[in-house]
């Protein structure tokens, strides 16, 4: 059985139910009988949705081949930061646990062993603490900065 998904930029994707229900969000829509018409996904653009659906399809196809799947996942997640966050947000919104975990793991790897300044630089984050707040937190976490 095929389902129709519509991205935020109005592109329609026809997908097999088995593939689409990797998303817990879509799965509950199907179970509630709300999936007869086109399912709108206003939070996911077509570019990201295409990637997400590729992930889902491969997870159905390679279900029994752990090694092949791992190889696919490692290659899949080698994307630049902008795409990575789009995938993360889509996986969160569509509730696709393994994609969410893999994307989070990728971001986590970017944080490892870095100082707060280095983390801000890598992820383009603005420091929104006042100097007093920053000093207080530094004191709280002093031991994390020891060798």
């Amino acid at each position: 059985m095929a389902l129709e998904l519509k991205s935020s930029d109005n592109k329609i994707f026809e997908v097999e139910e088995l593939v689409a229900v990797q998303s817990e969000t879509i799965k509950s829509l199907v179970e509630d009988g709300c999936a007869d018409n086109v399912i709108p996904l206003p939070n996911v653009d077509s570019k990201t949705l295409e990637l997400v659906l590729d992930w889902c399809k491969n997870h159905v196809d390679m279900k029994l081949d752990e090694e092949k799947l791992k190889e696919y996942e490692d290659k899949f997640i080698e994307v630049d930061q902008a795409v990575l966050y789009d995938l993360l947000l889509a996986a969160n919104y569509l509730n696709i646990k393994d994609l969410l975990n893999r994307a989070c793991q990728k971001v986590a790897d970017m944080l490892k062993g870095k100082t707060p300044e280095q983390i801000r630089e890598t992820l383009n984050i603005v420091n929104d603490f006042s100097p007093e707040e920053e000093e207080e937190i530094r004191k709280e976490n002093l031991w994390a900065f020891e060798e």
Partner: protein
Amino acid sequence: MEGFIDMLPEECVSTILSFTCPTDTFRSSMVSSIFHSAAESDVVWERFLPDDYKDVVSRLVTPLAFTTKKELFLCLCNPVLIDGGRKSFKLEKLFGKISYMLSARELSITWGNDPMQWSWKSIPQSRFPEVAELRTTCWLEIRGKINTQILSPMTRYGVYLIMKISNRAYGLDSIPSEMLVEVGNKVCNGMTHLRHEDGKKQQMECLFYRNRTEVLRKRVIEGTERFLSEREDGWMEIELGEFFSSEAYEEVKMSLMEVKGYQLKGGLIIEGIEVRPIYRFMKECLR
């Protein structure tokens, strides 16, 4: 370039942090207010706590007061007594790796129940209700065991006998003691002289007793020679050996024996055996 991560809901940031380690999480909490808030979440600290933490908490001698998983983690970074005071448990704070200390009561001390040979008493410097003091024996054999199931997986562990040598000690260092750590078919041998390192005294002994020392030493299994070192808590420790906790559940057998000298010895006070992750291996993970 825009800060993409600012678009992520806080719970996603918590999930990301849960894939790092306690050290990285504390550093990240300084990055911005969203990171600080996400770093407090139970989602993060639940992952850093050991899988069996609920079981460990249920076996505490003194219940801990905590409201968040982070607070529990920090509490457990100090040694806590479990199992009626027979063992102590601790997490190391960098990665949340597990360490245990088995009290003397938890070990098998040959002739430990003979009051002529060993006396059991309570002393303020001990974390446990009792320590074992050697009065006199010709057969010194101390054994302990622990299953890797309760330890952190894929971790290099060191095994240490925690003890003191009293001022009235005698006969302990006539011949080296043999130490062993065995897991599955992997064996780690070692030997040590149970004595405080006193360079001058040892030099004199070497001069007068060299022949005898060498004859006695030949009775002992060859292994890496190790030396007593002082701990921060006032006790001494000697490394019995090391092992790697693989994914399989295995029994680790640990022992110290001096049974080939036949001379009487006494004055050894046993606090227990500690099994803890080896720091130098963990430091490498931080880079």
